């Protein structure tokens, strides 16, 4: 069951429509910013990228949106909020440095802004060990921002390990989209 990416508009609609979860559980869904869907009926209806108000786009190359940083740009949360990592690595790849720099500028310009850095891994390996690897990734972004002059008080780190993959499925194309750190404001 391969999951297809979904149009942004549909994803946004899904985020506000809370469809009941698995048919026989009738669990307690408090309908916060996460929508929930029934995976049994349409496996293809799951959005692969961030939706709703909390999460910005996670696709595309990091460098494109960096054009024209200025006073105005620093007043808005940078659009690109996800950076990706190599297998078993927590080093920030050079292609994503401009993304992290844009967040550094924004956070310096907005000392009241708070960011939670979510660290994620691909599904390979054990869950709790991956929790630790996800924390390392988010921690390396936190240190980078700190060196760029962002106050520690503006940042926190939460690792999700392999628990919240952006994309389902096996193989490097899925794994590479799951090894990531997401900036959450």
């Amino acid at each position, binding site marked *: *069951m*391969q*999951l297809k990416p979904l149009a942004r508009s549909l994803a946004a609609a*899904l*985020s506000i429509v809370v469809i009941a*979860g*698995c*048919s*026989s*559980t*009738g*669990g*307690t*869904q*408090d309908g*916060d*910013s*996460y*929508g*929930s*869907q*029934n*995976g*049994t009926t349409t496996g293809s209806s*799951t*959005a*692969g*990228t*961030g*939706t*709703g108000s*909390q*999460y910005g786009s996670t696709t595309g190359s990091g460098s494109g949106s960096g054009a024209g940083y200025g006073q105005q740009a620093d007043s808005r949360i940078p659009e690109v909020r996800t950076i990706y990592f190599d297998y078993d690595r927590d080093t920030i790849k050079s292609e994503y440095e401009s993304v992290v720099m844009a967040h550094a500028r924004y956070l310096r310009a907005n000392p009241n802004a708070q960011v*939670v850095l979510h660290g994620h891994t691909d*599904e*390979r*390996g*054990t*869950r*709790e*060990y991956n*929790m*630790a*690897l996800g*924390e*390392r990734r988010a921690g390396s972004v936190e240190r980078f921002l700190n060196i760029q002059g962002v106050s520690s008080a503006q940042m*926190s*780190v*939460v*690792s*999700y390990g392999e*628990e*919240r*993959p*952006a*994309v*389902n*499925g*096996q193989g490097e194309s899925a794994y590479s989209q799951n090894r990531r750190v997401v900036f959450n404001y």
Partner: protein
Amino acid sequence: MQSLSKVWLFCVLLFVSSVASANLTIEITRGSDQALPIGVVPFAGSEGMPEDIAQIVQDDLERSGYFAPLARSAMFEQPSQSGNVQFGTWRSLDVRYLVVGRAEQTAGGFELQFELMDISGQRRMIGETVTVRGNDLRGAAHYISDQIFEEITGIRGAFSTKIAYVTAQGVGDNMQFGLYVADADGRRSEQVLTSNEPIMSPSWSPDGTKLAYVSFETERPAIYIQDVATGQRVMATSFDGINGAPAWSPEGRRIAMSLSKDGQPEIYIMDVANRSVERITNNSSIDTEPAWSPDGQSLLFTSDRSGGPQLYQYSMASGEEKRLTFTGNYNARGRYSPDGEQIFLIHHSGRGYQVAKQDLSNDRLVVLSESTRDESPSVAPNGTMVIFATQQGNSGVLSAVSADGRSSFRLPSAQGDVRDPAWSPFLN
């Protein structure tokens, strides 16, 4: 012939969320060539009862890998008591053991009688009358399986135990997680918790009444302790950073865990009564996934202090930490066998991530599973099977393999991913 009379106590388990989910089903994926042929004759008088008792017993015995049950269609006689068993008939069918029984509805529930026969020895081995209050026929059938299994193998049966597991549906920000407790055969699952945020790493208290687990319901990880019967729960730890991998100590007063509050993840031990934590490991690497030795004298844990994940053993007495695994570059999430002589772990072989066993007396490591994306091994309290999470196609499923690797079964789920299984201790 004398038949033991025993009241089988019926326990009503109350859950906060009492609605049962779709059950897990069993698929035997590998049968042992050393399985003992056994016949389990349908219980006389059980037609029309809510459960087929003999079928439950037969499935239990088959799943264990120790037994190869005779197909019902091959039984041209269906005796219900030992006096009517024609030994020659069953010998000609190559059956070594035979279970016969009868069932009767009573005012308060049911009364079951079963007898176990040794066909080659032409003798009755055991027999018992089981009184069922209410309609817990499945529980009574598992009890009968336990008696038969122990009588023949000398090993205590673990068919009346439970498994806790986590379900997940969806992807990315749209996910639904559930924590469930089901019978060891995957049936009668009960929801313990649901959340839009991840739930991980359930661990049973040694008396089987509570679960410790990780939940992200506050949008960050915290360890909770929940009473399974009443649903009452408390948040046990919510330090900055990772609060993970809870593992209940054998005497029940402490929980080992991984906390990153002081930097990188380290092993800590929490006193359950006053929630104070004591740091055990202290280095700049990842230390996580602790497990207690059955005697409570050692902790097994995963550390990447050598560069990649390997298993280490911490001695409570000396405070020494000793590396245990040297085969391959990825060995993680270890669990002791109930006798403490072996460890089960996830080993990255040339084929993938597999369940393996290492004998602590000679450090020999043997891969047990045939699947290659395995996680979270958990050992049955009698040490005969290891349940673990793996992938079937693109779905997460639970699977189990016998401790000798000879037999295995799978527990597919109709919906979503199933993972993070935890086999309960003995409950009776």
